[in-house]
Structure formats: C-alpha cells, structure tokens
C-alpha cells in the first residue's frame, strides 16, 4: 500500500454542519492533513438589501443574520443607528433591551448545546435543551409576538412594554433554570465518552486566536479574557455584576465549559435586571412610527456588541439621505470559522464534527 492523500467532501448537506458549511478535507488514512472551509451557500445579500430601504427597514435583514440570536443582532444595529443620529433612549427601554438580549443569549447557547450533543452522538441533551429553550421562546412570544425573528427593538426604544404576565414568566424562569442547566451539564460533562472525545481536541492556542480574530466564547476558552460587555460597556452593563468565564485549554471541552458558565452568568444578569427595572416610557416619543421612515443621517458609526458568537459590529455610513450609504457587518462566526484549518490539522476525521460544532457557526451571519 502506498501512502496516498484522499480528498473527502464534507457538506454542504450534512447534519453536523449547522447549516450549509462545506469543508474540503484532505485525509492521510484517518488523519486530517488539510481542511478548507467553503462558504457562500447562504449568501443572500443582507448588507446590500439593508442599504436599499430606510434605516428602520434594514432591521429585518439584520434580524436574519444570526437567526438563533436575533435580538443580539438587532441590538447592534439599533445602537449603531442611535449613535449615528444621537437618539436619546429612555432608561427603561435600555434595561428591557439588556434583559431581552441576555435571554436570547441563553436561547442561542441552549440551541448550541443541544446540537453539539447531537453531533457527539447524544440525542438526550437535544430534547432537554429544546424544552428549556421553548420556555424562553414563550416569554418572547408574550412580549414581542414572535418566536424566532422579532423586529422588536426600534430606533429610540422597544416596540412594546413588558407585560406583568411576562415579568412573572421571566421570574419563574430564572428560579427554575439553573438546576435544569446543571442537569443538562451533567449529562454531557459526566459522560466518559463525551469528555474523552472533546478533551484535547480542536485546540486553538492564544496566538492562533489572536491571529485569526476569533472572538466570543472560543476566544475566552483559549485564555483571553475579553468581553465587549466588560471592556467597553454599552447599555448598562457597567451597573450590574457578572463574571467573564475563561479557560486556558483552548479545546472543545473548554468551550463547552465556557458556554455553560456564560449561561449561568446570563441568568444572573437577568435576575439583577428584574430587580432594577425602572418605571417609565419604553420608547422615545419623538421617534414614533410615522416619523421613522424619514430619518436622515450623516457621518459614520461603528458599534461593537457581544453577541453569543463573539464580537458583532455594525459600521454605518450615512450620506445625508434617508437610506444608509453603507451597512458593514462584522460577523463573529465568519472570523471564528476561518480558524478551521488550524483547528483540524493533525486530528482524526472523527474529531471533525466535535471541532466544527464547537465553533457554533450560524450561516446567515457567515455568508450574510
């Protein structure tokens, strides 16, 4: 038998690609020699279409970028538009935004945890995670009237106030969630198979992370303590207590632990906001709906926010007309995905699904 490198095509249709990722894998026996991601299977012109309508209309395309954490995407856009136009936002609206964003972070991490379990050959975490996620979605349904894509944040506030029923639902959820999370964590973390398949797999060193521009939980799992919420606080993140979990191993198991801890911290943030939520308006009366379509702006604004996947930034350029001249999206999944060749080289083909799913890519955001 002569040594021969064979090329294997992974995706774009594969249950573990989390959408439509294709990876060209070169194999020497079982060892991955080279892996190149091929993207663009969900390229749907989000940036250009957002530049075609007015400022408020761009929201629907921003919503559909990272569709499992739509509110986090909306927040980035809304903050960018507000900083471009110097819009004042009532205090209550900012607190509501913060709470909704943290709830959506939980929903996003839960969907990651469920599908990650699925990729590792476990069906149980999927059902547990979706049970918990549905509870959060019911809260969103009560507040925004939608389950997945909300269009809830408006320029100058939020579209609807939080109802007393929704407050009760959130309070009930914060009380129940942590024991449920521990249950889910123990299914995976106490499984010998899971731990041995993830420890020491898909390692990214500190230098790799910095050179690829990897952000979010992946970065924090490689020993870099960086979180936009802590480093340059937006909304009122400086007024509440939360920790930024970090690990130094940089492997799939470290990312799992970081995300689990992040979910705990998000629940902690939500609990604090429930106590602090002030009374008042939920939107700036100056920016009522009929006026929104005529909003004009000049200048540039870049606002980074911490989405569940990493640093999400919107760069807006206004040329004085009512439609934005440029909407540039800095999507975290795209940068995280570029680390695939380094992350996979030298590992076995069976480690591929574990490593890819630990990135948590969402293709609406990667391909835009």
């Amino acid at each position, binding site marked *: 038998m002569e040594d021969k490198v064979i090329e294997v095509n992974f995706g*774009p*249709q*594969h*249950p573990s690609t989390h*959408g*439509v990722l294709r990876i060209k894998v070169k194999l020497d026996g079982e060892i991955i020699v080279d892996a190149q991601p091929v993207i*663009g*299977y*969900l*390229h*749907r*012109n989000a940036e*250009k*279409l957002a530049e*075609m309508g007015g400022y408020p209309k761009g929201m*629907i*395309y921003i919503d*559909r970028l990272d*569709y*499992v954490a739509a509110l986090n995407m909306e927040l980035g856009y809304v903050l960018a538009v507000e900083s471009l136009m110097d819009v004042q936002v009532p205090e209550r609206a900012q607190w509501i935004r913060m709470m909704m964003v943290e709830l959506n972070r939980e929903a996003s991490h839960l*969907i990651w945890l469920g*599908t990650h379990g699925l990729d590792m050959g476990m069906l149980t975490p*999927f*059902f*547990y995670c*979706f*049970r918990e*996620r*549905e509870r959060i*979605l019911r809260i969103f349904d009560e507040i925004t009237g939608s*389950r*997945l*894509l909300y269009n809830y944040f408006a320029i100058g506030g939020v579209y609807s106030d939080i109802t007393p029923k929704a407050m009760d639902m959130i309070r009930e959820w914060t009380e129940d969630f942590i024991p449920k999370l521990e249950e889910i964590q123990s299914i995976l973390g106490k499984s010998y198979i899971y731990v041995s398949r993830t420890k020491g797999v898909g390692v990214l060193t500190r230098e790799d992370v910095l050179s690829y521009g990897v952000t979010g939980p992946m970065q924090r799992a490689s020993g870099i303590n960086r979180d936009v919420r802590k480093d340059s606080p937006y909304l009122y993140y400086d007024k509440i207590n939360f920790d930024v979990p970090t690990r130094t191993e940089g492997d799939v198991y470290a990312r799992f632990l970081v995300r689990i801890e992040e979910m705990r911290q998000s629940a902690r943030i939500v609990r604090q906001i429930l106590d602090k939520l002030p009374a008042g308006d939920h939107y700036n009366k100056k920016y009522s709906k009929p006026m929104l379509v005529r909003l004009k702006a000049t200048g540039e604004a870049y606002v980074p926010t911490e989405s569940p996947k990493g640093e999400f930034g919107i760069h807006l350029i206004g040329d004085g007309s009512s439609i934005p001249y440029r909407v540039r999206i800095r999507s975290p999944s795209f940068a995280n995905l570029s680390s695939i060749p380094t992350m996979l080289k030298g590992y076995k083909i069976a480690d591929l699904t574990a490593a890819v799913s630990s990135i948590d890519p969402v*293709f*609406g955001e990667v391909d835009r």
Partner: protein
Amino acid sequence: MSDSILVTSLEEALKWGTGKSLWPFTFGLACCAIEMMSAMGSDYDWARFGSDIFRDSPRHSDLMIVSGTVTKKMAPRIRRLYDQMAFPKFVISMGACASAGGPYVRGYSVVDGVDQVVPVDVYVYGCPPRPEALIQALKMLQDRIVSGRVRH
C-alpha cells in the same frame, strides 16, 4: 366477525402506509430550520404524526423539507439531493424564502422559490412559520397521500 376483518386493496393499504410513515430528511438551510428543529423537539414533538425519524441520508427519506433561502449556489445541490431520494418522495416548501424568495427576493444570488428546482407538494407561509404551521403542512400532505391526491 365484521369488526375484526378489514377488507382493502393493496393500493389503499400502500397509500395509508406511505402517508403515516413519512421519514423527513435532515436538511436545514436557514432560519426556518430552527423552527423545523423546534417542531421535532420536546414541545411540539411531531413524532406523534408518524414521521418520527429524521434521516441523515436522502436515500433513506421520503420527505424533503426545504427550510430556508435557496441561493443560486445551493440550488444544484438541492436538485441533486432530491434526485437521490427514492420514490415515493414529497417536498414541503417551508417559509417565505423557499416558497417565493421572501424578503431576499431582490437579491442577485437568491432563487425566487424552490419550485423552480424541485416540484413542491405543500407550501407553508410565514417568516419563519411557527412549528404548528409546519405540522399542519405535514397533516395536509398526509391527507393528500392517503386520498391519492399527490403526483406519485
């Protein structure tokens, strides 16, 4: 005696069996795929309707749920996957994007409707449709198969 004997033709029995054991194909494209996962998840549990096993290979499955925006780069792959499925095969077009391009219809890289690539049996509206809507589409497809109102 008449309670315990069922007289039917082979064709009728086959239709009934096909309709009540549709195996969907794990094939997610975009946002709608998350709602498809919700439909198979804990709360909605669409295994109740007989289509419980999501198959990972097109050759094992009867039902393709096109859940998301179909781009020009993805369209040939969808056709290829559809061709790999064995007869009888059915397609549900889930959501506005798969049905008619949805909000992305003005984009240069988006196919305005998956029915230009594969024949569609049931369209579901919504952006994204709620899991209830997808389950209704499944029930509609099942009724059609059992009563023989489908192409194959």
